[in-house]
């Protein structure tokens, strides 16, 4: 079956405008944190949830630590040649 070419060319254009999408992402993220100032859980499951931006920081820090530890420390220990095992 043929994939739609129009959609494909739109995605090509989108790829070329990656910079604009990046800016849009930053604006959206800032907007979400701004909303978090006003919207907080009524019954927080964790005490720090009451602090605006907690989950944003949680996700960012978790991602950075996870990628760094796994790729820089764990991966060199575990990696084998694809055909070795």
């Amino acid at each position, binding site marked *: 079956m043929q994939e739609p070419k129009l959609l*494909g060319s739109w995605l090509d254009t989108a*790829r070329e405008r990656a910079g604009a999408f990046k800016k849009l992402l930053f604006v959206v993220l800032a907007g*979400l944190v701004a909303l978090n100032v006003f919207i907080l859980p009524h019954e927080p499951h964790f005490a720090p949830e009451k602090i605006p931006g907690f989950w944003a920081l949680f996700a960012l820090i978790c991602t950075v630590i*996870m990628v760094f530890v796994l790729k820089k420390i764990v991966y060199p220990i575990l990696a084998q040649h694809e055909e070795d095992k």
Partner: protein
Amino acid sequence: MTGLEHLGIHFFLHPAIGFFVLALVMAFLKNRHYMAWRWLLLVPPVMAIVAVVALSMSNTGPRDLTTFSYLGQTLHLGRVDTLSLVFAHIFAVQSLIGFIYALHVQDKAQHIAACFYIAGAFGSVFAGDYLTLFIFWELMSIGSVFLVWLRRTPASNAAGFRYFLFHVFGGLFLLGGLLLRHGALGTFDFTAVTPGTAHYYDYIILLGFLVNVAFVPLHAWLPDAYPEATITGTVFMGAYTTKTAVYALARGFSGFELLAIGGCIMCLYGVFYATLENNARRLLSYHIVSQVGYMVCGIGIGTAMTVDGAIAHAYANILFKSLLLMAVGCLFYSAGSDKLTELGGLASRLPLVLIGYMVGAVSISGMPLFTAFISKPMIITGAAEAHHPWLALGMEIAAVGTFLSVGVKLPYFAFWSKPKNDKPLTPIPWNMYLAMGISSVLCLFFGLFPETLYKMLPFEAEYTPYTTWHVLQSSLIIGFTGLGFYVMRRIIPPHPSRNLDFDFLYRAIGRGFVKLVSVPAAAVDNIWTDVYARFGMRGLLGLGRGTNVFDGKVIDGVLDGSARAVREGGGAAVARTQTGRLQDYLAATVALGLIIFVVVWFVK
């Protein structure tokens, strides 16, 4: 729809029957006529959907619809209640999606294997006793291992054997446990056990279940074998084995703390390995371990909210995980590789595959409007409310890792990371798009209308997914995980490698066992060769001269005659069955077993 509910009351059509009949019919069909017989593949799934909907509509509470005596035991084939029905419901829907996805496959053996596999899954969820469960449990193992072997590569052969050996190991624990339990209690009834009253035989049965649920460290068969299966086989396997085991745990072992902690470890272990993985199908396999971890954790915590959440997540997971495996399967089919380092720049050439994949990706990540948003937070919220904040936190970290690998890393390196890819692509059959389309619509449907799923759940826990806070929290986690990926974009690119996991341990055990047997055997053989050369040879030469006369005059005459008889009789046919391939003997054993089963059924 009037009438369907009466059908469910008066006539129980076991959903497995259609798949057995189809497997039998397919045995007599030829691969080259597949354009004609392929439509038959859709009949058992449609029958299964009708049967399950009919049972759901005839709301008469738990019931035991089919029993029959076999070898002095009563087998309960039709235990129907809300728990079995919700699993049967999604199994039936997924069987239709899976067979639509596989509609272009001309190799009937793959379809027969899938039929046995799905029949085994249905048989397991409707089994009212451990003996029936064990029979169908093993049938699933056999059906699924052929989905690996039938890819017919050296790697799939080896992975299939490891997969099968591990499942035999798990099956033996289940068998041992159920026999010991029968010895102690005098019954095979498959009923719930509480942690306080569990005996050693219950834990042995639990161990059998834990193998199939891919409980760390018994999980390594899954990321080892699933990426080596056929493209369509992986889609089937992603749906049934682990989810049937989740059903068995929900039925029998709710509230075990071991499961709560182990499930959380599974969540994290799966996402950690997925972060390192280069093979797209293996990456998603690690995410099966992770997502099933949520379910195991929910069952282990054991409150109405967490168990309902686990079941809802099993339902949702079958939909979005099969969608992800289908999309990655399309990539593999079209581009000829499932390794991220060999893909990239495909977004504009496979936009529909990209859309299908992304629907699955945002669904698994718990984005509002999509399925996991209505199921995964039930488990996390339930864990926090049941005073397990650390388990809830572990599952939140795993949620971050899920979006990182499945939502950003895989699509970025498969579709975007390089300039437009100009390698030749194989056109993808229409049926693969259709199957992805159906899954995508269902992922969105259950995300938009959560009540349709919630009303199928057994414990009717109260949970409202669409609150302002839930939507914002989920958006914050997803959005800032994306930012984290951007920050770490120079470190995260995958590399071609195979990462050490626990399968390394059982490969080493296997190699050790072979050495243990072969080294002493070789030593004995060497000594025997020396003894034979010194003492045996001279005597044997003299004896040989004497027997030569007898051999030439008598034996040759007899042997020539019998050889001619064998050649002209059925010898050639017998020789054809002696292929020396364990796969063939296993298939023959299953076929013979089923024939005996059917004969006994009818004779009785």
